């Protein structure tokens, strides 16, 4: 089965919630919708589920147009951040409830409930009532109830926003197995880049109701096609600086550094660009002979034990370097750091990716 959105637009009165979105998800895949609050993740899911009908465009399952088909006639399960359980039923009965409604035979029901409970690490809690559980355990119960149905389309709207990140790690381990077992299409909305990367699969980045890019998660991360995608998919935030390309040279705003327009930069037209640099590519130790040494002022350091986030004032921008190990740096002190041009993304004035190492340029 495939789920296809074809040029879908959703307007509510004069407001455009979804703008001309086309996406195709295959059976047995995980698809992440990544974007900030109000970027259209929930609106898009409601269109996929059939809870809302698009103003324009089509929704197709296996090529069949289901645009007007209501949610109850589709095989869809949905889990929200604000989850719901039946307070007077045990965890077991909560998970079993969709199967009871579907008159699944007792032995089969028991097997599926226990299997799903084991997956969600709820086995020791099956006899408890939801109110005797922690928030995370309640959310896992809601997740299990969505999973147990064996729906063709499972929509998860920030389901782990209230949960321990450890569960996300474990889900990453387990999800591929669940997918191959159920064959369902999973769609997972999140605001967090790290969560998308941990989950893997494919990712569609969203901004203001548009899909800015769709592809395998790691590819979208490594090769964002626009400044917008790069920003959405960067945590800590992407570091950027304006540069001017003239002749054989790129010159940064404030003339903080100059860079020969060699190798992957050679084909750039003269003009204004913006360089994007991921925080883990801002180095406190020289990464190689071609690195550019720069000096900034330490604004703050945050030390996680294994890594340090060093906030640096540089050329009027607030940058963040994510460095391995513990770096205790005094606030207000100068700090030397290194830029590695082989890690640069170069975006043009319109925000499109213009150059990056290994990027094939259109003729």
């Amino acid at each position, binding site marked *: 089965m495939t789920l296809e959105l074809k040029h879908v637009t959703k307007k509510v009165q004069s407001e455009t919630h979804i703008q001309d979105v086309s996406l195709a998800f295959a059976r047995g895949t995980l698809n992440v919708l990544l974007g900030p609050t109000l970027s259209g993740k929930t609106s898009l899911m409601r269109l996929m589920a059939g809870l809302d009908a698009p103003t324009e465009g089509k929704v197709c399952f296996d090529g069949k147009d289901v645009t007007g088909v209501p949610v109850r006639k589709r095989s869809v399960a949905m889990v929200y951040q604000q989850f719901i359980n039946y307070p007077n039923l045990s965890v077991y009965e909560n998970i079993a409830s969709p199967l009871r409604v579907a008159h699944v035979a007792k032995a089969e029901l028991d097997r599926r409930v226990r299997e799903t409970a084991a997956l969600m690490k709820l086995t020791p809690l099956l006899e408890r009532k939801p109110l005797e*559980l922690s928030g995370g355990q309640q959310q896992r119960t809601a997740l299990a109830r969505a999973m147990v149905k064996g729906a063709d389309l499972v929509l998860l709207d920030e389901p782990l926003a209230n949960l321990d*990140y*450890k569960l996300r*790690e474990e889900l990453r381990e387990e999800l591929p197995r669940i997918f191959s077992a159920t064959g369902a299409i999973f769609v997972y909305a999140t605001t967090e880049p790290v969560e998308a990367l941990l989950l893997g699969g494919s990712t569609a980045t969203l901004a203001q109701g548009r899909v800015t890019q769709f592809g395998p998660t790691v590819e979208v991360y490594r090769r964002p096609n626009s400044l917008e995608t790069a920003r959405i998919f960067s945590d800590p935030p992407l570091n950027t600086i304006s540069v001017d390309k003239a002749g054989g040279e790129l010159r940064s705003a404030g003339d903080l550094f100059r860079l020969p327009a060699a190798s992957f930069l050679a084909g750039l037209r003269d003009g204004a660009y913006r360089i994007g640099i991921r925080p883990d590519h801002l180095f406190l130790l020289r990464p190689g002979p071609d690195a550019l040494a720069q000096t900034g002022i330490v604004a703050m350091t945050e030390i996680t034990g294994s890594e340090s986030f060093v906030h640096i004032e540089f050329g009027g921008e607030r940058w963040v370097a994510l460095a391995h190990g513990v770096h205790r740096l005094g606030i207000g002190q100068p700090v030397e750091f290194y830029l590695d041009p082989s890690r640069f993304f170069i975006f043009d004035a319109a925000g499109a990716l213009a150059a990056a190492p290994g990027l094939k340029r259109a003729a």
Partner: protein
Amino acid sequence: MARIVLDNIAHAYGPAPTGPQDYALKRLDHVWEDGGAYALLGPSGCGKTTLLNIISGLIIPSHGRVHFDGTDVTELPTAARNIAQVFQFPVIYDTMSVANNLAFPLRNRGVAKDEVDKRVREVARMLNLTALLDRKARGLTADLKQKVSLGRGLVRADVNAILFDEPLTVIDPQLKWQLRAQIKALHREFDLTMVYVTHDQTEALSFADKVVVMYDGEVVQMGTPEDLFVRPAHTFVGYFIGSPGMNVLPAEVQGRRAVLPGGHEVALDAFYPNLPQAARMEIGVRPEFVHLSASGAGLPVTVKRVDDIGRMKVARVDLDGRGLNVLAAENAVIDGDKSRIVFEPGHVHLYADGHLVDPQMHEQAGG
């Protein structure tokens, strides 16, 4: 501001607790130093919110006393404790302006108008809210509402402590960075005692000077982020802090070596002459300190899977039926399914029944 002492606290939600299993919070003594920035970190259900509610006065503990600067406040309600609280969902009045929201806690206490105006302006300046003072709170974005919520806590001059309960959970990642930086700056500027509850390790570790890790109603370790990472006091801390968590393997200690299942030997950095009898012995080593070895040295493993998580790669390897995680660089090339792993010296810890065993650097005479 205050030094907060929890003296022999325990809490059970049920009326007649019969054993440890009935306690959401098991016996604990704890001191929150005046002006400290603390994070309370643990999985859902570990008791961290219960502990926070005991400090704020929302819960009267079933055992023990709570002292603020030497005064017993155990039975005092929240309002009498001068505690400011910031919750996951901002608590503000939508129909009031930002200025009136900020002024509310002061007007409520009958503070003079001039003083109210002065404090409101000061707090608004600190939080970059000045331009929004006349705006209605309704329609503000979640992060701005959370700032107003925080401002309402800061506006009072007599605040003993600010308690945060998952304050950034509903904030977009990009804005989390700004808001957290601002909270940290406020802490530095005003020396406020702050206790910050979260399930997010990055948030806890980057915010706090001291992190308190809770598990199953108990504090399993309190330390700097570095302590928790470099020397986890309990295998749970090793698992919970770090992503992926610490690798833990059963081991038998023989002199300065640990013998793993399958007979593989790992050199230990220290002597352990006085190991507890009959304890379950394990070694723990973080994925950051396990390296895939190109040469012939190291323990033989099968590479099951390599997960590319963007900034780095996680190799899932199998050592005689036991799974281990190994971190490798973003651009690392991991070929084939056979490899070897080596543990970085100084980062292999020994655990007895889950608890870190203190190493002895020198062999004891006759030991």
